[in-house]
């Protein structure tokens, strides 16, 4: 079959980070092509390059046999490419019709020819089985309906290739079914679809072929009918050189953290954590694996005290801390996922950042004892080998690895009972990764309980004592490391369900 789209050797960098590293993608006309990978694998970046939102640093795009270069989405649209973003691009206060024709010129332009739009939409509805009330305000629609509006927007512009970015993330199972049905019928009418997902089951269910990306590179393209969940999981998760930090076996002590039936809401008011329970003992590293956005952020924030749970209990050393503020949870150290946005005041000095949580302890009369603070900061810098020009340089001037060391210095030096480390090595170089993992292992050896939240399975496997998988806010299986293997964890991460063993 002929290819409608070919992306060759696409490279896209953001600063030092290579989001797409010589990626190739070939999509055939009339197929549903799955683009599978973990978060951060570069799927969305690749599609944004195709759609003209980003310009590639290297590589070329061939669409319908011609080399193209899209400077903006407008170019992509007029060439016949449509995209339904993960976050819908709708204006909530406008009605469906207005959203559909936004940016489009109807025959009586600049007036809006409602009759013409209505009849065109009617034809599309008949052809593709998408039914939607044109004059309903988008604000009042369900998420599934909003998605239909997005798809209608693309179809209305007579696209030939439709990109769907994680289209099922927000849908109920019934909505997913009807979406898949609609997609199949669209391809029958000659449309080509690229379907971005990190869920194996869906990829298997709806696509014809699947291209797997991992860490910005493509791993390969397979025919859906000839592959299996296990194979895809292996391709998706992959295996890196395992480094030599290993968690020594220790006797676990008393229970430090206990989480009971925890329910936490996200910023939009839906439940991101749904009835999670687990416990961690002294000396234990408890690793939670999972693709970002499955409730990790809300879970860690609830335990750290930044987010109030809707239901459930958090106990620290047997004491109920569910309702306490951050300042009353001094026994918890927290290495947040967003180091610079949350864990640091980048424009303030290294000294101030080291003292971010402890400055009140240095009060001498009315003022703070800066001499003592500097003394202590020097010790910390020494102990954690933070490389900085001086104590008074802004923290933003440090490298990524040193920023993480600074945060570790502040957090670990407060003799915590529990350490929450979220994606603690993301974006670090090998030496930095090694250092952070060693530190966590050491802290555990000293009797801390460690909650490690990571997308990096190597990391999870390397230093955890027990491994849990989080998917859509639920814990899917807790296992001893010895019993765990990559495929099983990868399978659970992608939404697989464990059959009773």
């Amino acid at each position, binding site marked *: 079959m002929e290819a409608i789209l070919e992306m060759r050797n696409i490279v896209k960098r953001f600063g030092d980070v290579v989001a797409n590293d010589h990626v190739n993608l070939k999509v055939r006309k009339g197929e549903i092509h799955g683009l599978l990978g973990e978060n951060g694998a570069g799927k969305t970046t690749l599609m944004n390059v195709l759609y003209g939102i980003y310009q590639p640093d290297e590589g070329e795009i061939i669409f319908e046999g011609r080399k193209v270069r899209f400077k903006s989405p407008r170019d992509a649209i007029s060439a016949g490419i449509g995209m339904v973003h993960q976050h819908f691009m709708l204006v909530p206060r406008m009605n469906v019709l207005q959203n559909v024709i936004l940016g489009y010129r109807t025959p009586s332009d600049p007036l809006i020819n409602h009759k013409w739009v209505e009849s065109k939409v009617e034809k599309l509805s008949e052809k593709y089985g998408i039914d939607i009330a044109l004059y309903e305000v988008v604000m009042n629609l369900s998420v599934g309906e909003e998605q239909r509006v997005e798809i209608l927007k693309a179809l209305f512009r007579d696209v030939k290739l439709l990109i769907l970015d994680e289209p099922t993330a927000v849908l109920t199972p019934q909505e997913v079914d009807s979406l898949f049905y609609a997609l199949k019928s669209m391809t029958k009418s000659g449309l080509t679809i690229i379907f971005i997902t990190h869920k194996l089951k869906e990829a298997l269910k709806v696509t014809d072929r699947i291209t797997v990306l991992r860490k910005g590179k493509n791993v390969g393209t397979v025919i859906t009918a000839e592959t299996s969940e296990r194979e895809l999981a292996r391709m998706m998760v992959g295996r890196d050189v395992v480094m030599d930090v290993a968690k020594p076996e220790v006797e676990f002590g008393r229970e430090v953290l206990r989480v009971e039936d925890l329910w936490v809401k996200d910023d939009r008011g839906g439940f991101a954590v749904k009835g999670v329970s687990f416990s961690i003992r002294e000396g234990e590293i408890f690793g939670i694996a999972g693709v970002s956005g499955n409730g990790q952020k809300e879970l860690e924030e609830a335990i750290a*005290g930044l987010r109030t749970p809707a239901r459930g209990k958090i106990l620290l050393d047997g004491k109920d801390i569910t309702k306490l503020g*951050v*300042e009353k949870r001094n026994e918890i150290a*927290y290495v947040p996922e967003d180091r610079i946005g949350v864990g640091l005041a*980048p424009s303030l000095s290294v000294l*101030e950042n080291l003292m*971010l949580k402890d400055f*009140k302890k240095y009060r001498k009369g009315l003022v703070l004892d800066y001499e003592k603070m500097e003394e202590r900061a020097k010790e910390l810098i020494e102990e954690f080998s933070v490389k900085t020009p001086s104590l008074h340089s802004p923290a933003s001037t440090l490298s990524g690895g040193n920023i993480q060391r600074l945060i570790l210095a502040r957090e670990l030096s407060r003799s915590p009972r529990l350490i929450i480390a979220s994606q603690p090595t993301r974006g670090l170089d090998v030496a930095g990764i090694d250092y952070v993992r060693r530190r966590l292992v050491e802290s555990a050896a000293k009797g801390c309980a460690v909650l490690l939240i990571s997308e990096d399975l190597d990391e999870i496997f390397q230093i955890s004592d027990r491994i849990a998988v989080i998917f859509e806010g639920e814990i899917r299986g807790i296992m001893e490391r010895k019993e765990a293997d990559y495929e099983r964890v990868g399978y659970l991460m992608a939404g697989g369900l464990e059959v009773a063993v």
Partner: protein
Amino acid sequence: MRWNYLAPVISIVASLAVVGVMLAVMGINPLEAYIVMFSRSFASKFGLAELCVKTTPLILTGLAVAIPLRAGLWNIGAEGQLYMGAFAASVVALYINLPEFLVIPLMMAAGAIFGMGWAAIPAFLKAKFDLNEIISTLLLNYVAIYWVEYMVYGPMRGKEVYNFPYTDLFPDAATLPRFFGTRLHLGFLIAILIAIAIYHILKRTDFGFAVRVVGANPRAADYAGISRQKIIFYSMLLGGMLAGIAGMIEVSGIQLRLRPAISTGYGYAGIPVALLASGNPLLVILSASLFGFLYVGGSALQTTYSVPVAIVYVFQALIVLFIIGGQSLRRGD
């Protein structure tokens, strides 16, 4: 780093150039005009005294903007807080019988409390409902100004002022001592001492530390267990307090009575003063002097060339625009 020092200089020079063009359009040689501004401000003890007199309220309103700005908040309400402070101080001066040595301290306390109270409204609305403080502080300026007008046209109008909208003159015990046979008064010293005190408070206390964290990264403040709402509230209150004291000093040191238009935009001028000093209280003294100079120089232009003082507004606006323009360009979005 170097940009931080260069930006204000470039902005001032650029503003001087633009205003120079405006002067030239009016047929005035800008160079000569600038020389007049200089000589009038620096060449005599009266000029220097006037410079200090104009600088005094600007130091305080500059701080009133700078402190909340350190916590990431725009206080556009220094003008209104100044008026409320002046009003409260005037009430004490005119209507309360006190031992003489207590009059000035009590006026200052009253001014501080009313300035603070006036700032507490937008601070509360911000902390509680996240109501944009820029607009609320600004609108409250008008309310405060009309309040003072209402008082001096009505209940507080003096017995010996014919039909003018003034209160009676304050008794001697309610006026700040003046020096060297000029209008230079104790308020100047007070303002400088306050600036130094604020510098140390922000630099050395735990409150100052918390303000810096909130201003630098509110999410990091949450993360570190620093109560953002509290810090926002208190920094605004502190700002309002200083603007209120500025109002007290203005009526007690210069006007010697309450009347409308006691401030020629000192509260608004506090914004460029604070921006030029990049929020540093000691530098506020310096940038306030610069704007004091613009005020004195502006009135020198008025008497020499009959150029309206409004030219000072143009200066202020241009300096701020150049500074924020420069910042945006450097951010390089």
